[in-house]
């Protein structure tokens, strides 16, 4: 365990984040650690930096963590969360420019094979350029 890149799913909706994580677990299995979060600090639709930091730490792996996001604020808040991590962890976390559901499944599939963080990110991001 933990010798694979971790996956974090950040959506404005906790239901979408959870549903995406469920799909990843069913399609890829449990060898990849998947954490998710969604919702603003009041529980409404939105994203929120403290929960994203918590999810990154939950999915933590020495090989790094790939984050998949839905809309604008999820990306901005995820980038902010990465910057607020302990300095030695920051360079091991990337926010992927990829669709959230497909990107999460592709990233987790790649991660399950033991790939590096850069490989995981590249596979997820191929979806955006296709």
């Amino acid at each position, binding site marked *: 365990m933990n010798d694979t890149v971790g996956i974090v799913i950040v959506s404005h909706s906790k239901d979408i984040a959870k549903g995406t994580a469920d799909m990843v677990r069913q399609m890829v299995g449990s060898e990849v650690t998947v954490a998710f979060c969604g919702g603003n600090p009041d529980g409404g639709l939105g994203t929120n*930096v403290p929960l994203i930091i918590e999810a990154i730490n939950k999915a933590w792996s020495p090989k790094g963590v790939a984050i998949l996001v839905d809309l604008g604020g999820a990306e901005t808040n995820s980038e902010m969360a990465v910057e607020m991590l302990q300095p030695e962890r920051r360079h091991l976390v990337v926010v992927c420019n990829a669709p959230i559901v497909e990107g999460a499944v592709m990233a987790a599939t790649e991660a399950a094979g033991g790939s590096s963080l850069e490989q995981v990110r590249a596979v997820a991001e191929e979806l955006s350029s296709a």
Partner: protein
Amino acid sequence: MSLEPETLKSLVRAAAEQVIASTAELTALDQAIGDGDHGANMKRGFEAVLGKLDAIGAQPPAEALKTIGKTLVMTVGGASGPLYGSFFIAAGDALSHSRQLPDDLVEVFACGVGAISARGRSQQGEKTMLDVLFPVLETLKTEAGKPDLIARVRATASEAVARTAPMQATKGRASFLGERSVGHVDPGARSSCVLLHAVCNTLEARQ
């Protein structure tokens, strides 16, 4: 001359109260071209700032600005949290590096605006808060030392907000609307103007 704790406190209080008072207006603007949460998000963030007002007032200005920034980052819950948060954190960093208020206002403000631009990977002309903040930075530079600087900043902010209406958004949620974003004032530009006006009014009243 340096920024007195009482001045800082009254500026923060006024800015927070004005943003909170503008919740409905910001919500309405954001419903037109965004997802309608800008008012509620800003209200939540600045209520959290108000809750820390005494602690903020007790800190040196550099630390106070960073506390405001971190509070916004952690509580706003939308993209505006990291954007405004980065402004205050970068401005606080600038003050930590031997700059002073009000003497180095232009440099400190420029650091804040630069941080928003970097965080949002956005420039002027994309129908965002930067379309108010860059023109205000320009006014701070060109009108520095003039007796009516405050009035000019206020006027610049108001005019800059109005100029966002005909713009087409290419950044942020409003960019999904493309041409349909034209004709609406940008909510982030408006909230920047509210904050700047609160600061201007407070400084004027203390003169």
